[in-house]
């Protein structure tokens, strides 16, 4: 009799995703599903999906979810958690959602110290709309709307959201991770566990930023994308615990 040691998490539906080859979203969706299973919270968890590439994340997870208008995930999640404090509520947001159109909601939910878990996918680009500049696009990075590369004189600098949020008194946990290798993926999972544990223990606002590959709009192979995260992106967005 062979023992089954690895399988699809209960919280992840058995259907193919719409993501491009080499995209990071599928990996993080799976990590969240594994963590939800391992913490035994599938029947208590409520996810809030963003607008962006992960807009239909709720099609892949097998637990209660809400859509939110672009940028408003943390306003929606704030209210769900206030109405149902016994549930575990998390948002899943990209860099456009969390750090451009939703900056106000992000800062104020963090500053109110809402007891929420935030999974922040930073891939330095707008994927869903076709590769435009994100607030986290690196200087010199070519995108559809910065075709000669991001120029600080015109487009300003990459926004380091985690560094901005960490000093706020309402924020209890901020960790930046990456998907650049299997080792880093495991570290990312540990951070996600911590961010959910904090909510279960009523510790408060917890955010995990994940540097995630977008081979399609970086015009790289999946392998090159992982190297680029390690060698270039992580220089602008250093990995590790910020709070």
């Amino acid at each position, binding site marked *: 009799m062979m023992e089954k040691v690895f399988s699809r998490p209960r919280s992840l539906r058995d259907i193919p995703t719409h993501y491009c080859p080499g995209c990071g979203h599928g990996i993080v969706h799976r990590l969240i599903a594994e963590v939800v299973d391992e913490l035994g919270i599938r029947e208590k*968890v409520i996810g809030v999906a963003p607008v962006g590439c992960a807009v239909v994340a709720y099609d892949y997870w097998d*637990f209660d979810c809400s*859509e939110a208008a672009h940028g408003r995930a943390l306003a929606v999640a704030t209210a769900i958690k206030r109405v149902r404090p016994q549930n575990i509520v998390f948002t899943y947001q990209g860099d456009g959602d969390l750090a451009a159109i939703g900056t106000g909601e992000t800062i*104020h939910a963090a500053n109110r110290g809402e007891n929420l878990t935030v999974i922040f996918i930073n891939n330095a680009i707008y994927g869903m709309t076709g590769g435009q500049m994100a607030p986290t696009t690196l200087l010199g990075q070519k995108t559809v709307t910065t075709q000669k590369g991001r120029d600080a004189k015109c487009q300003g600098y990459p926004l380091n959201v985690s560094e901005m949020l960490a000093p706020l008194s309402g924020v209890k946990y901020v960790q930046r991770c990456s998907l650049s290798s299997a080792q880093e993926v495991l570290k990312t999972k540990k951070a996600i566990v911590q961010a959910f544990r904090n909510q279960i223990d009523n510790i408060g606002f917890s955010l995990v930023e994940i540097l995630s590959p977008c081979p399609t709009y970086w015009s790289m192979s999946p392998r090159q994308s992982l190297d680029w995260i390690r060698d270039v992106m992580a220089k602008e967005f250093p990995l590790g615990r910020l709070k």
Partner: protein
Amino acid sequence: MKRLMSGNEAMAEGAIQAGCTFYAGYPITPQNEIPAYMSVRMPEIGREFIQAESELAAINMVYGAAAAGARAMTSSSSPGFSLKQEGISYIAGAELPAVLINVMRGGPGLGNIAPAQSDYFQAVKGGGHGDYHCIVLAPSVAQEAYETMGLAFDLADIYRNPVIVLADGMLGQVMEPVQLKSQIPNPKSKVNKPWTLTGCAGREPNIVKSFFLKEGELEKANIILQKKYRLIQQKEQRWEGSFLDDAKIILVAYGTMARIAKAALHSLRADGKKVGLIRPITLWPFPQKVFAHTASAKKKFLAIEMSYGQMVEDVRLAVNGKSVVEFLGRSGGGIPTEKDIINKIKKL
């Protein structure tokens, strides 16, 4: 128990009586008494109050609270209510019940803080993107403003639809004695909400959304909405009619304007003039039934608004060419007076 209170406070207390369990709002004049009142009363009875960082956050908090099963409400005034339009469209698209108060002030732009009725189009025709309707209730005095909140929350729950209470700065600020109910009822909804986000214990996961990407899905979702809107139009038209049987000239006005029109009506009647009044209580659905009944070549209608002519278009549609429809309106701080109405009638 009677208490002297502003129309804004009456609506806030009415919402509490109606079982509002969640309120989020952002300050703007002339509706500031609502969040102030809610900030005291809601925590007192174990309910949620949030002063949001913006109108955008407030309306999306209402979306989240409604998705989680709360009887949720926000309030604002014209410029702030414009900011909520995207969120209202999402609430309509996801079929969530929510109550939204707009205490209208003068516009366009920042306008001023004087009473107006110039957001009628925005409230009844859509305001946000997509084919949707909000149910729109228009109370006229503080007592009615208090009582209308129960109806607003019930209609929202029954139809899973946003309900706008369309008030104006005059109604919001006026101080009047209001007869209050003695007990606060249990905040439970009268309808079951099996679609709410509670965690998926013992059932399939629930998804609250308005996004339908696959071919044909969005059209199907729209057809379901349109069926619901037709049902609401059949069942929920409300109005108050005065002297319609013998009236030759019928005034049409809602909210504060109806109150002034009533004063003119009584003066004109005392003078032997055969004048009547239709006061729409629901602005959407517009009470077309009463117009279909009363319109004829022998009668004239006079629509009176604190705007430059918005509701009058619905009056013309409802009358459908059977009677002449005249208009009297001022806005931007000006309000048609009893004397203005009497003078206009004399010229008709």
